């Protein structure tokens, strides 16, 4: 019957609308459900996941020594040309010429955090740090040198 259907339509429609309003009304009154993270304010407590890939860093120990042999496996593994390794030759204790890194250039602006260089590294010299605050005013500041000044290779790493 037309009239019954018509009234039923209106009734069902109203009911569905009220069910929706019930949900929003619930959240309006239950402020505990709020999930906003107040980012710059919660910096002190904000903990990123350990594995979060934010940028590549080179591990240096307390003696300012790293394990990079300058093999450029990471440079080859990188799909974007993010890493540039400049090598130098220095004399070791026995007076033999030995390859060592001069500068480990890392272009953060090109990096896609794909983790391929970390996997490629045979000596586990580089790792990903969960640092995500990379904004700077000048793009050139994103080109970083990863080996610290005056650092040298750890003894025993080939």
């Amino acid at each position, binding site marked *: 019957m037309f009239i019954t259907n018509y009234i039923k339509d209106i009734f069902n429609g109203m009911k569905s609308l009220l069910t929706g309003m019930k949900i929003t*009304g619930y959240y309006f009154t239950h402020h505990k459900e709020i999930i906003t993270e107040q980012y710059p304010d919660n910096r002190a407590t904000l903990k990123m996941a350990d594995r979060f890939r934010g940028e590549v860093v080179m591990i240096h120990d307390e003696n300012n020594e790293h394990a990079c042999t300058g093999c450029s496996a990471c440079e080859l593994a990188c799909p974007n040309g993010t890493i540039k390794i400049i090598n130098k030759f220095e004399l070791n204790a026995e007076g033999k010429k030995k390859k060592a890194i001069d500068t480990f250039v890392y272009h953060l602006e090109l990096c896609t955090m794909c983790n391929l260089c970390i996997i490629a590294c045979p000596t586990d010299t580089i790792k990903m740090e969960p640092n995500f605050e990379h904004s700077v005013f000048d793009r050139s500041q994103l080109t970083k040198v990863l080996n610290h000044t005056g650092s040298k290779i750890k003894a025993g790493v080939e």
Partner: protein
Amino acid sequence: MLSLENITNTIHEWLNATFNPTLALLSEFVLIGICAIALFAMLGLSLVLMERKVAAYMQLRLGPNRVGPFGIFQTVADTLKLMMKEGLTPDGADKFLFNLAPFVVMIAAMMLLAPIAFARGFQIWDINIGVLFLSAVSSVSVIGILMAGWASNNKYSFLGAMRSGAQIVSYELSAGLSIITIVILTGSLQISDIVNSQENGWWIFKGHIPIVISFITFLIAITAETNRAPFDLPEAESELTAGFHTEYSGMKFALFFLSEYINIFIACALGATLFFGGWMPFHIGHWEAFNQIMDYIPSSVWFMGKTFFLIFLLMWFRWTFPRLRVDQLLSLEWKYLLPISMINLLVVTVMAIMGWHF
């Protein structure tokens, strides 16, 4: 007991005692003008903030919370920003109409403040056709919207304006019909008469189910008339970017924005006046003791409470429902709301004649 009526009376008497009547009247005009503009600004700011907060809490967010405590100065900051912004006029636009349109909308919204009774004896102009005035002038704003859409020389704006025209013209009918039910019961178009007629109970309680139906119809109709979701087709941002005000920026946009909120306030104030007794406190028949207690709450609080409750309802709608399609919008009006409110009007008329209401 501090009441707005006493303040207004004191000012009125003082002015009349100090100056001659013409000067007193003139200074009253100026005072009212200042009050109205101040109210405007206050309403705009507080309603925008309220909307943001309501939206945020419904969406599991905090909303503005940076500028001032709980973000209460956020809208002030936004207004400042809008004032600083350059008001662009597109090259191809009809410059005169384009610049005129926001003012038309704004003036229409401003005129509507006149007959609203904010509190006991606090009313700018108690015109004897108050309700008619309200429903007539509120449809003037569509001219401003059409003007804006046409003059922008933008296709989105144009489509938005056309939608707005169709929408407001059709929803005016059911809004009008649901207002008339109260007018029939009261027997007067004057706002003060309508409020006084609810001294022993609000119409929503006295008028049985037909008045509840006409209240719902009224609520839907004003949602559509104020171009708010789920009826925000004129500015449907996912379809028409921003509809009729796509090309507006800076203060001209702010005027549109403000007038939208003023219109909401007016529409809700009208709804509160008609169905919830305006500033009339909650009275039940002849329970004198109960009525006395209720009278202790100032009438302005009653009025604002009711109005803001209705505004909250509209915001609740907005942040819950999806938007209608343009043909569904019209079929809702012509197939559902209009027949229902017509039959409802008939029922109310019979009710009024037979005296079935309380």
